[in-house]
């Protein structure tokens, strides 16, 4: 286990009664990356994150944070924003931030300057002496975000951070996350919305039905999965295209056919045959969407969802 990895999971499993919530999950989170833990609702993301945070204990397997099992020192180096998040409604914003800093053992002086810093950035200053109750939902989300990073953690763990966030806060928080990464910090975030992950993640781990389906850098995965995908403009009907040898599927998108080839099909041979039979106006590689990668990986792992990825 090396210090290049901030979070390491090795064969981690967790049962709730007879239900296997997490099944033999292993992954490493490289330092300084945005790591996406992705999958549909109920795939085991929140349980995994709670085990990383030592809120629930794994039944088997090992979890190491910054090279050792989670202890009080490392706990203070993590900023955690759970999916179920809230604030004490009757506390003043300022007192609330001081409290959340205090339970991370941030000295009061340090907390003071960081709070001042962040409330200016987030335009919360006029609300500092208001009760949380008086704040709009968007404002409360800002307070929660400040509370998550008030102790300047090495690792940020965000569970469905964008759910319920308004577009302005979404953009704001994306910027801060990228800024965080540029300072060498590590961000783990879970989501079931793959488009969000696509824009932010360097590394991903796809889970489905409690099991890992795929892990790796997003760039590598895209390259790997683009092999069988072609974008074609061709004078042929979908049925004609599907009838071609080696074609697994064919969809229309913006006036183009997106053709997926069976593994092992020779692309050049396929194109030659295509041009022999039909009028091909244009063709190019199609970089796969994360969702397409997900679906084909799930299919390959034999874990096809009965539910759709929403």
């Amino acid at each position: 286990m090396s210090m290049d990895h901030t979070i390491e999971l090795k064969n981690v499993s967790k049962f709730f009664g007879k239900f296997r919530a997490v099944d033999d999950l292993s992954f490493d989170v490289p330092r300084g990356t945005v790591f996406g833990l992705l999958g549909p609702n109920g795939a085991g993301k929140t349980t995994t994150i709670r085990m990383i945070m030592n809120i629930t204990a794994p039944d088997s397997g090992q979890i190491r944070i910054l090279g050792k099992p989670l202890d009080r020192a490392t706990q203070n180096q993590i900023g955690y924003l759970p999916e179920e998040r809230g604030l004490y409604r009757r506390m003043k914003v300022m007192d609330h931030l001081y409290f959340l800093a205090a339970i991370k053992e941030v000295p009061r002086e340090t907390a003071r300057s960081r709070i001042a810093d962040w409330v200016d950035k987030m335009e919360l200053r006029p609300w500092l002496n208001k009760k949380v109750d008086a704040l709009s939902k968007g404002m409360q989300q800002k307070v929660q975000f400040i509370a998550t990073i008030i102790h300047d953690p090495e690792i940020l763990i965000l569970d469905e951070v964008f759910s319920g966030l308004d577009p302005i806060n979404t953009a704001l928080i994306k910027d801060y996350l990228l800024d965080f990464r540029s300072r060498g910090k590590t961000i783990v975030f879970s989501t079931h919305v793959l488009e969000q992950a696509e824009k932010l993640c360097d590394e991903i781990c796809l889970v489905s039905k409690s099991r890992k389906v795929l892990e790796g850098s997003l760039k590598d995965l895209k390259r790997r999965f683009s092999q069988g995908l072609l974008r074609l403009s061709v004078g042929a009907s979908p049925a004609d295209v599907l009838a071609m040898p080696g074609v697994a599927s064919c969809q229309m998108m913006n006036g183009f056919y997106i053709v997926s080839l069976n593994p092992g099909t020779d692309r050049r041979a396929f194109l030659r045959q295509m041009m022999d039979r039909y009028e091909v106006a244009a063709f190019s590689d199609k970089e796969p969407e994360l969702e397409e990668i997900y679906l084909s990986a799930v299919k390959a792992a034999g874990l096809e969802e009965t539910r759709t990825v929403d």
Partner: protein
Amino acid sequence: MNWKKIFAVVRREYVERIRTKAFWIGTLAIPILLMGFIGIQIAVARRAGGDHRVAVVDLTGNLFVPLSEQLAESEAKQKKEGPSKAIHWVLEQRPLTGDLATTKEALRKEVVAKKINAYLILDPAQLAKDRVEYYSTTVSEFAAMNQLESAVNHIRLRRKIADRGLPGALAADLERRIDLKAFRVTATGTAEEKGAGIIAALVFFFLMYSTFFMYGYQVMRGVIEEKSNRIVEVIVASVRPTELMLGKILGIGLVGLTQYAAWSLIAANLSLPGIATAMASSEMGVPRIPASMVGFFLLFFLLGYFLYASVYTAIAAPFNTDQEAHQLAMIPMFMILGGIAVYPAVMNNPSGGIAVFFSLLPFTAPLTMFLRTALSEPPAWQILVCAVLLVATTIGMAWLAGRIYRIGILMYGKKPTIPEIVRWIRYTPGKGAQPAVAETT
């Protein structure tokens, strides 16, 4: 245990509660209500005086005059003691109009119309059975009724003595009663007990009882609030569940002690001098609150508070709303009420079997043992055993509460059943699967 983090939780619980209006209203209102209550009692006692208009139907024909004289005499006697207390009797003799029933009906209407306060029937047939009938809208004017009763008795006694040809002075001699003076024996000596000490003990007893409820309930509400606000998971990412629980219980307990301190200040400066004067003028004497009573009060309040607070925490943790928790909140309620249920028996005999048993039974011990120490001097070993049992039970309850708490605080949605909660208690991480409840992923 990280005391820095626990202190942060204690501080939050304390500061946030001290700042609420509810705290200050409770702190100011309770002594004011208590003062008002005592004030009303004193005012009522004083107002017992005034005109008391009674219609008398004297069927014997020879009781009305001596009765008026006798009442006038006792009125004069009372006026010497304190003019405000004396009842001014206005007796009106009424003849029979028609039969007794119609007369009574006419008088009843007069009472309802408030022309008279009451009416009295002196019927020889009833007197033969040692009975006199008194009709009034309120039959709880004990001072007036007592005077009337002793006046009639006095007349009858004198008549009986005269009938037998005995000297009249015998009447006064026969009416003398002894006064039992009670002294409380303690290890250091004896002290006369006129009742004020017992009243002080009871005031402390009921104060302890009501604050157990107040602060136990606050602990329960606090735990539920953290769940319904969805803040608890944010906090347990920094603080262990047991630390959060301990911090909350300590913080709210400190609020309780602060409230006691404020009440003592208010009492010492405002209400006590008034009460003391009022009580000194009564027959009970000045209340005296020995330091040992205050010491035992604080000891048993703290021991009891920690016990009940752990029970309330265990009960709150699985639920998301106060309503869901209400059913189980009966458990600590009955524990606390147990101390109230046995208090008459403890008053009767603070060293008796019942008192000893319930003062050693941990769930009723705090109230019962405090009352025993206030009324008598229980053997030191009993106090020690009681305290040890309380501490041991509290540790056990806190352990149980902690096990329910660590799982319960992350349970949203479905209300868990009792067997499910039992499975939470039995679950140990790493040994078998965590008990399942809906919506945990």
